[in-house]
């Protein structure tokens, strides 16, 4: 088992979600939400929702282009949470129907894709 830490200290609870949800690129994060199962989304949302505040407080201490690899992973996790929260908290059991429509809307550019 890989025991190497992928995230800054204090965010160990989110380690199991790094592989699936720490994704570069807004379009990729949006697509991952659409392709995910309800079980995956709910588990990630419940684990991460209370940590978004502390994560941003930590990351805000540095300019974005100076984030190290662990911090960058955490940033991308929290950005994925923005998408996933809408599925879990707003759409709920409408998400499968919503995802079908959402596939036709393409993110062509996002501010988070620059200087990432």
């Amino acid at each position, binding site marked *: 088992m890989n025991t190497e830490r992928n995230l800054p200290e204090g965010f160990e609870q989110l380690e199991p979600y790094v592989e699936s949800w720490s994704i570069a690129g807004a379009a990729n994060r949006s697509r991952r939400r659409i392709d995910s199962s309800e079980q995956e989304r709910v588990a990630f949302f419940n684990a991460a929702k209370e940590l978004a505040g502390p994560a941003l407080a930590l990351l*805000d201490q540095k*300019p974005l282009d100076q984030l190290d690899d662990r911090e960058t992973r955490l940033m991308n996790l929290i950005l994925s949470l*923005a998408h996933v929260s809408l599925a879990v908290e707003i759409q709920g059991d409408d998400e499968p129907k*919503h995802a079908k429509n959402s596939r036709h*809307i393409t993110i062509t550019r996002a501010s988070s894709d*620059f200087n990432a």
Partner: protein
Amino acid sequence: MAESPATQHIELDEDHAHLGTGPIPAGPYYQPEYFDLEREAIFRRTWLQIAHISELPEPGSFIVRPVEIARASILITRGRDGEIRAFHNVCTHRGTQLVSDDSGKRSLFSCPYHMWTFSDDGELRSAPDFERFYVDKSQCSLSKVAVDVCAGLVFINLDSSPEQSLREYLGPFAEELEQLPVARATTFSEYTYEIEGNWKLTYDNFQENYHLRFIHPRSGEAANGPQNPFGYPIRYGFHGPHRTQTIWSNPDARPKPFQTFGFMKGAEFAIKDGFGASAQGKEYYAIFPNLFILGSPMTPFSQSVVPISANRSRGIIRMYWIGEDDCASRRFAREYAMATARDIHSEDRAVIQAGQRGLESGALSHIHFQSQEILCRHLFQEVDKRVEAYRAERDAARAKA
């Protein structure tokens, strides 16, 4: 310049009947013949928003944008003198499209066919073996297109001598747009969709709230409530072919916990950027023919509904930001705002397409708009007025010939 008349407002419960009550013919929403008339009557002679000034950040910047309905490609440059100019992206030698890149930085543009080379002010700078031609270089400049900027939005007009300046065309809305984040934006996020829907049918979806509770039951929860079950606007405003609605939002809405977190982050940066509560914050502008701008600094989006054919369009939604992401919280706030708006927009496409399929069957000769679909009625009236005027102009020219 004559002073522009003020915007005419109608409050929610006021009588709207003076703007018409009759059914609307269905044909204009799917017939290719009507679309062809719209091309000439509207899109070849009206100011069309095509870009944002942030896409031309410095001298030498250029962009190329299609105007499919006019079968045109437009080259827009920022010259060494800082001036924005627009041209047909067509080499004046034998009509080859000059630039194939969508954007870049360059002050000379060479046609790939025979290397005619133009400067960013459109002049023909050099052409190989030019002595063998029977024309002067000064007569070979790129074909100019009228261009102007308001609130950071770049508009073009394919009419070589537009009837009105852009400012005259926008009237009092010009000044209001100048107050919005779009006017100060230096960058934007963007999402797009292709739709099998006529541009008016598509556009209409985004200017009536009657559908909100049925199509956006979850994402649009805060947009209606027991006091206003359909989430109708507080008032409507009209200026010439343009219109606006003042959006109502439910004061008793209870955002979900993470949603509150996302909105609060957005509000924090809206305030930092100098956008507090403003007269424009709840305005949703519909600029004729095909542009929307939402005044909210929390969700500062525009949508262009680009006509492709009688039954195909493209939606381009942009959210405008002042400065690049400068910290993690701002980056998160922008991602959350974009994802939220995108969720709402994505719910409309399927039902618009269903409308298009229904209309194209020819089953209906007419459709009906209620008083709270007044903005849809106004769009049709403004389109049809221009189409009829063009038809008369064309028939008169034919009779003369």
